Structures are given as C-alpha cells and as structure tokens.
C-alpha cells in the first residue's frame, strides 16, 4: 500500500497557474489525514471481463479526492463499489477489501440501507425523481424516519440554501423537478444526497453533462464541501481536478483492466508525478 499519508515534501508553495489557492493552504483544510475509506486489492469483474485489478487506495476523511484517468479504465466501477451500487449490475463480481470507517463492506452481509445513507452519490446525468421539487427532498427523509413534517421542511430549506437553489425555487416547490434546468437538477440531486447527512459523497462526473456556466456553479459547490464531507469525485476534466482536489488517484488501463498507477496529494501528482504514465497524461492534457 502506498503510504500517501507521509507528509508530502513541502513542495515549494506553488501558486497554481490558474490563480487558485496554493496547494499548501488547500491541504490545511484536511490536515489530519485519517483514513475514511481504505481500499485494498480490490478486483471487479463483469462476467469474464476484468474491469479493475488490485486497486489499493486510501481515501482521507474530510478531503476531496479526485479519481482521474482515461475513459474505460474502471473509474465508475470503482466508485460503485464504495456504496455497493455494483450490486445493481448483473454479473458484477467484486472481491478484495473496502473498509468504510473500519467496517468491511465487500462481500459482507451488512445493512446496505444504512451504508448508502452514509455514503451519498451523485451521477453524471442529473436524475431527480419524477416528483415535485419538495418531494424529491422530503420523500427520502420521510422514509428514513423523520416523522415530523416541520422537521423535514426545515431540513429541505436548509439544504436547498446550502446548494444555492432556495431563492430560485422557493416559489415553486411543488412544481415537477424535471422542469428545472440541467444545472439546477444537478444541484437538487446534491441537496437530495446531503439531506440525509451522509459522511461520504461519491460524485460520478457530476459536471460533464452540464453547460460551462452550470458546471462552474456545481464545481464551486463541491469545493465548498471540503472539510464537512469526504468527497470522492470521478472526473475526466484534469483542470477541474486541479482546481478542487486535495488528493488525486490516477487510474490507467494495465493489461486490459483498470488499476491505480499513482496516487497522493494533488500537489505531488500534478507537479511532480512519479509515474511516467501520469506525467505523460497530465502533460498531454495540458498541452
């Protein structure tokens, strides 16, 4: 297991070329790098076809970890194993070990509902339920045992404010959620995940289906989650990873299956990649 917790050599406080906060300052938000999710020798196969091979990775609590790499190298498959959504896929076979806060979640008979309550997920395509805006947030709460209507409404308002949607929708809470714009829908989905107070948020390319403006809004929102939640974000967009990630895991296709070729703090991976593949990929994307 690569020990990513070893304090990254205090690289020269490299002011990001895009004028963002320097790496050092960003890392301060999640300085105490305690592991939240520990992945060890994770193997995922679809029937005979391997998708992930021996992935070992630690995801630190309270940080934003970006999972980057080319298409088809198993990034989404990886994400789906973290909340056992892989169970929904036919003939998807997962082995190895994933520990969430010390508890093994692969292959065990744990309470999936409790797990998924603590590990929220946002998908590439915004997928609000075909209900009203209000029901999209209150229905999961109601189901998870929040009995009092006033509590649910308060929580809903709180979370809609958190994602900056309150002022846009407060007059039409009973309108169908599918009538919102793509960016609004994605923020609603984020609110819907946050409303259950998860500890971890899994984001599967949350901005790739949005236009640039909406994408920027959602991205800022994700950056603001740092510290409160452990965030794992899959992204194709290296610039985005650079802007928001504290940690980066680089996935690559090796012998037909995806695996992690390098991971560590964003500063290290982006500024001083150890692996030539990573270096080439980052340089290529940059050039």
């Amino acid at each position, binding site marked *: 297991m690569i020990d990513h917790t070893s304090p990254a050599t205090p690289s020269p406080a490299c002011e990001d070329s895009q004028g963002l906060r320097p790496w050092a300052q960003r890392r301060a938000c999640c300085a105490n790098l305690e592991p939240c999710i520990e992945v060890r020798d994770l193997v995922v196969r679809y029937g005979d076809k391997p998708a992930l091979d021996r992935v070992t990775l630690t995801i630190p609590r309270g940080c934003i970890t970006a999972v980057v790499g080319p298409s088809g190298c198993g990034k989404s498959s990886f994400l789906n194993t973290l909340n056992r959504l892989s*169970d929904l896929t036919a003939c998807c076979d997962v082995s190895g070990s994933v520990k969430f806060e010390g508890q093994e979640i692969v292959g065990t*008979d744990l*309470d*999936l509902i409790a797990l998924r309550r603590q590990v929220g997920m946002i998908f590439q395509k915004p997928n609000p339920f075909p209900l009203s805006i209000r029901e999209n947030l209150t229905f999961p709460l109601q189901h998870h045992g929040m009995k009092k209507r006033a509590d649910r409404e308060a929580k809903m308002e709180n979370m809609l404010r958190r994602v900056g949607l309150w002022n846009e929708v407060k007059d039409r809470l009973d309108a169908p959620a599918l009538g919102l714009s793509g960016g609004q829908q994605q923020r609603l989905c984020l609110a819907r995940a946050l409303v259950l107070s998860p500890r971890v948020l899994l984001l599967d390319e949350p901005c790739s289906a949005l236009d640039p403006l909406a994408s920027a809004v959602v991205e800022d929102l994700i950056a603001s989650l740092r510290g409160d939640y452990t965030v794992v974000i899959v992204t194709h967009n290296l610039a985005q990873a650079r802007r928001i990630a504290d940690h980066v895991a680089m996935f690559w296709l090796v012998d037909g299956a995806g695996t992690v070729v390098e991971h560590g703090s964003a500063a290290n991976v982006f500024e001083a990649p150890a692996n030539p593949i990573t270096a080439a990929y980052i340089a290529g994307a940059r050039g």
Partner: protein
Amino acid sequence: MSPSRTETSLLWLLRALAAIAGAITLLIVVFLLVEAWPALRSPGFTHFLSDEAWFPSSSTPQFNIAPMVAGTVAATLGAMLLATPLGIAAALFCRFYAPPALASGFRRLLELLAGIPSVVYGFWGLVVLTPLIRQWAPPGQSLLAAVLILSLMILPTIALLSETALRSIPRSYLQGAAALGLSRWRTISGVALPAARCGIASAIMLAAGRAIGETMAVLMVAGNIVQVPDSIFAPVRTLTANIALELGYAMGGHRAALFVSGLMLLVLIVVLVTLSDWIMREEIHG
C-alpha cells in the same frame, strides 16, 4: 443484502404470484391430459386418424378427426395465402408509400380492425358475406367464407407486426440504397424486406397461430359439416368449431375425444410459438 422483514415477505409474495402465473400453463396441460386420457388409452391415438368416421356418441363410437384436421389446415392455409401478401403490402404502404398523416391514420385503422371481436367478424360474415357467396355458389357457408373471414382477422396482425419490423430497420440501410439511386420498389425488395425478414416471418407464425386457434368466426361461417372439403365452396368443420359445437352435450369417451383435439391444438400452438421465438432469436444472434 439484509433487507427488512417486510421487504423479504413482499418478495416472497411476488414470487408466489409469479409462481401461480407460471403454473397456469402447467395446469392447463395437466387438465387437458387428464381429461383426454380415457380416449388416448382405450381407443388409442391411432384411432383418431384410422377410424371410418366421426360418430363419437354412438354405441360403437368412431373417432376419425381427419376431416376436422383437413378443415383447419385448409382454412388456415387459405387465410395465410390471402392475408400474408396483403398484410405485408399494407405494412409497406404504411411505412414507405403513405404520406405521414395518412400513414398514422391507416395504422389506427389497422389497430381498430385488430380490435374488432371475433364474434362480430363471424356475425358480419354470416349475415353479409355468406349470402353473397350463396348467390354465386350455394350453400354459402363454406370453406371460402371461412378463409375470407380468417384472412380479414389475421391481416391486421401481420400488417402491424411487419410494420414494426420494417420500422426497426436501421435508417442507414435505406439511405445507402437511396444514395445508390435505386428506385423505391428496388430499395424495398432489395434492402427493406430482406432486412426485416425475421420480424415478418415471426409475424406470419403468430398470425398462423391465431388462424388455427380461431373459433367463433369460423364456427359461424364455415357450415360445420364433417367432411373433407372437395371444393372451396364446400362447408367444413374445423377442430376448434368441433369442440365448441359438441362439448355442451359430450359425455364419457366423446368428451375425452374433444379434449384430445384440444391437446392437439395446444401442441400445434406450442410448436408455432417456439418457432417464432427461435426466428426472432436467430435475428438477434445472426
């Protein structure tokens, strides 16, 4: 997964419902076999083809169902011969010839035709069609009437299913043909029909199944005389009509004989359904 208790019990409820639904077919086969068993055992199956005639309730019963089989085969074949080209032509018209508004109207008309109850077709055939045939060649209630009514009934099935098959041809095939400067008919005969042949073949199988199983319409127009038809104007009795006519008063061996013919119908349909399934699967794999 550790679902809650309600969830587990709901899942078992669903399983039970599905098991009931799946068991109905089995139940039908079992009951037909049980009821047909006396006839299959005591005269034996060969009697159904080798006896001299159909006198099922006389003291020395005779169980020759060959005339009924001939009636069913003749009526079905005739209807298929008539309805297949017309149905495919109707599908082609809908897909390639009619302007869009007309095409959707025509489709709706085919759906309405498919929705008319068979007893209404039979009634119309009885009061309108058979008198017309009678003027031409008495007695009117005849194989021809059965063929005409049956083809009218299965035509919408063939047309609608073929149209669906034609619709699922990749657009690029047709554009490719158009780019070669082929005429419309050559595009249809050279590209569209071959590309949709599996879907159309499956439609024809299903329609054949419907024609074989149809009871009321045929019962009302075919004349129902037990004989191997010697001309298209001769009255015939089909297997299904025979059951409908005689089950009401059939006893003992007679009743069992009727269940044997029901069993034969069932086997025929299973063969057709399996064939049609197989054709469709060939298309997916090939």
